[in-house]
């Protein structure tokens, strides 16, 4: 059975439907890219899967064993407080908050894991820095490290490369791919970068008026790609 199965899902806010008839499933080890135009409901889908808002109708099933506390999340826009005094280590450690349950303090194993996640993302040197004083790209990596601390199984990324320069963007994609192949973390990623989506992912979900879900190769052969994919790469 799949790690995550969504059947006939309708999404929206306060009764207003934004997407309907969404069906897809994610298996352990998949790399699913979610593409679609601005405002088509990609972020809404993420939030619904995470249980931050209820679906209007339809079902979201997770295989028993995958709990909310085992999913990592990198939001599109972090509602992080601008003036919050927090060190990078503190931010990354907060990824364990859900997993720790009622235990008041983080243990040594978690501290070591946080350090190794910083290492993995190449930002160990930032550990003591103040989060609000980092550049956008550095902040993005810190938040990815935090998301990694929250999971060993599945990570949801909402436009993880927005605002990053081309070099760092590529690095970020490689890091995510590496997590997927080597750390065996299932990846669900929202992206506007069709080329990268096609290059890295195993499955693609196109959210829009009529949705598409299938493997990468099926997507390449579909007329959806002919329209959206070409248009997207012309602009970018």
């Amino acid at each position, binding site marked *: 059975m799949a790690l995550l199965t969504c059947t006939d899902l309708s999404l929206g806010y306060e009764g207003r439907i934004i997407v309907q008839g969404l069906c897809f499933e994610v298996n352990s080890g998949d790399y699913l890219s979610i593409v679609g135009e601005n405002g088509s409901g990609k972020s809404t889908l993420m939030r619904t899967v995470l249980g931050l808002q209820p679906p209007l109708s339809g079902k979201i099933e997770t295989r028993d064993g995958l709990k909310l506390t085992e999913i990592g999340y990198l939001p599109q826009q972090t509602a992080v407080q601008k003036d919050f005094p927090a060190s990078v280590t503190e931010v990354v450690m907060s990824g364990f908050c859900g997993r720790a349950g009622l235990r008041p303090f983080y243990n040594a194993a978690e501290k070591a894991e946080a350090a190794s996640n910083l290492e993995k993302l190449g930002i160990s040197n930032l550990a003591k820095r*103040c989060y609000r004083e980092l550049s956008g790209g550095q902040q993005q990596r810190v938040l990815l490290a935090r998301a990694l601390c929250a999971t060993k199984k599945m990570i949801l990324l909402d436009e993880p490369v927005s605002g990053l320069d081309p070099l760092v963007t590529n690095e970020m994609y490689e890091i995510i791919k590496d997590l997927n192949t080597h750390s065996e973390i299932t990846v669900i990623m929202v992206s506007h970068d069709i080329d990268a989506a096609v290059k890295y992912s195993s499955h693609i979900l196109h959210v829009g008026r009529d949705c598409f879900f299938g493997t990468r190769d099926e997507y390449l052969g579909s007329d959806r790609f002919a329209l959206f994919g070409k248009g997207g790469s012309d602009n970018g």
Partner: protein
Amino acid sequence: MAELFERITEYLSYPFVIYALIVGALVALCSSLLGVTLVLKRFSFIGDGLSHVAFGAMAVASVLNIKNEMPVVLAFTIISAILLLRTGQRARTKGDASVAMISVGALALGYLILNIFSSSGNLSGDVCTTLFGSTSILTLTDTEVWLSCILALLVVGIFVFFYNKIFSVTFDETFARATGTKAGIYNLIIATVVAVVIVLAMNLVGSLLISALIVFPALSAARVFKSFKAVTVCSVILSVSCALAGMLTSILTGWPVGSTIVAVDIVFYGIFTIAGFMGRLSAK
């Protein structure tokens, strides 16, 4: 100078002065603990609203001639805190308006009730005391001292136990919720603790000045320090020192204690702002 020192030691030999200092230090400690969280979660307006609610409750309690008004006021304020949090969450934008309504409403009704029903000969004096704190806190009863100590211990205990959760929920509530932290419960805990702190602090600085006690030390510390832990520790130390300095000054000069403490807080806010600015300059 020596004379001043002598006077201080003389005052310190009275137990009621010691009690006042202990309670004052505890109140300062508790109120500063949650400062960062409140300021950043935009909860400081709830703190402000609650202090007015506490004033209204105090007015009702004193008219009803309730001997030990603290538990009544406490219960009333906690309930209001929870209600305010609820309305604030359901409609983000309307949150401020409802807080304003409740707080100003409680203030007006409280004063009205006092005016109509109070038998006290010195009404404006009483009101002034509730709003700006007693002219001296040297009149605390034994029960008040004990209750303050217990509540303060409770607040510190809750804060330490939930420290990491409070950090997580304050820093990024969406992420905390998404990864399985029950943010609603922690918001509730925060609101309850704020209510307790406000009732505690009312004796010391009065309901109008409580926000200052909560906000200033945290903002000062955040000017200089860069991690949550450092800011929290610094604001606690700062708040307690300012409170002690303010209280001693007030005892020696006869100035109103609440305003004196807040004045010291303001001075240190200035110093920390300059220090933070210098620090950033020298870092460049």
